[in-house]
């Protein structure tokens, strides 16, 4: 088998193994399904184009996560600029969330919805760290490699995020 064919086969396996994980990672950041679909495609195009740059000494999923997180953040920042709102404003995401609930693309128990609403109150970085640690159960070392932040900084960020989520859920 020649090199392009081997490459194509490797990529195909990678898509099979990581497509859903990447989609869910992206979806939880950009919220809307159609947006998540577009961003996921961009992520895999980037992976395909840069497969040669992958360093064998780093974990494949941290490399893929890193691309997914960067693409997702870039996407929501573009959306904010396009709508001329502050780069820290999560209103667009909250709107997408509400729209998703109404259309049935977001459907869960009341408590799950409340938790997601609480997470949407967090700034991007805290939201990301919370998601990777709480839902994905990634180690701080892995999150550090994905986000390029120190482990100490991540622990502090996660702690603050947890406190805010707790505070939000205690309301009412």
């Amino acid at each position, binding site marked *: 088998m020649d090199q392009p064919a081997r490459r194509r086969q490797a990529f195909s396996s990678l898509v099979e193994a990581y497509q859903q994980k990447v989609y*869910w990672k992206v979806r939880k950041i950009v919220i809307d399904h159609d947006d998540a679909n577009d961003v996921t495609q961009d992520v895999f195009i980037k992976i395909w*184009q840069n497969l040669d740059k992958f360093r064998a000494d780093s974990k494949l999923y941290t490399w893929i996560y890193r691309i997914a997180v960067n693409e997702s953040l870039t996407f929501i920042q573009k959306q904010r600029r396009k709508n001329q709102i502050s780069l820290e404003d999560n209103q667009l995401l909250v709107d997408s969330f509400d729209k998703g609930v109404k259309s049935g693309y977001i459907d869960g128990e009341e408590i*799950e919805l409340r*938790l997601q609403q609480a997470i949407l109150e967090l700034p991007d970085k805290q939201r990301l760290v919370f998601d990777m640690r709480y839902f994905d159960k990634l180690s701080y070392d892995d999150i550090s490699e994905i986000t390029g932040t120190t482990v100490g900084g991540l622990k502090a960020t996660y702690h603050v995020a947890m406190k805010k989520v707790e505070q939000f859920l205690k309301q009412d």
Partner: protein
Amino acid sequence: MKFPNDSFFNKLQASIEDIIDDEQLSIGRVDHPFTVPKGYFEQASQQILALTSAKKPKGKQLAFPKFKVWYAAAAILLLSSVTAWFYTNSVADNSVLVQNLTNEEILSYLENEPIGYSEIANSVDFTNEEIYELTSESLPFDDDLDYMLDSPELLMEEIQQLNEK
């Protein structure tokens, strides 16, 4: 601290305590409420593979592409030439420039510049002959000189002092 009557909150609280204690999560995975249309993932995989087959993978690139190196070299050469030209033309030897000036041009310049007699005397090493030659002419350097030219005795005294120095 009272949470709503759902065990989830108790688990969340427990997880917060664990994080604070030893950075470990004791709570199990909490499912998110997001859903996708039926059959989405199967279809999406095919879409991704179709999209990427149309795109060529990027080859390994040099840190600086070749054409950029040429542009950089040309820019450096141009910058060096301009700098050298500017330096040569702006910092020319003053003595060469002065040699090209006529006496009239120098005198015209001195007349229009607020330079005093003492400044000129201090900056130029005159020979005795030159001093006598200068003082024999009436040059409007400044008021001091005019006054001295009106009083030959004072002028001779000044010249003598200069010679002693």
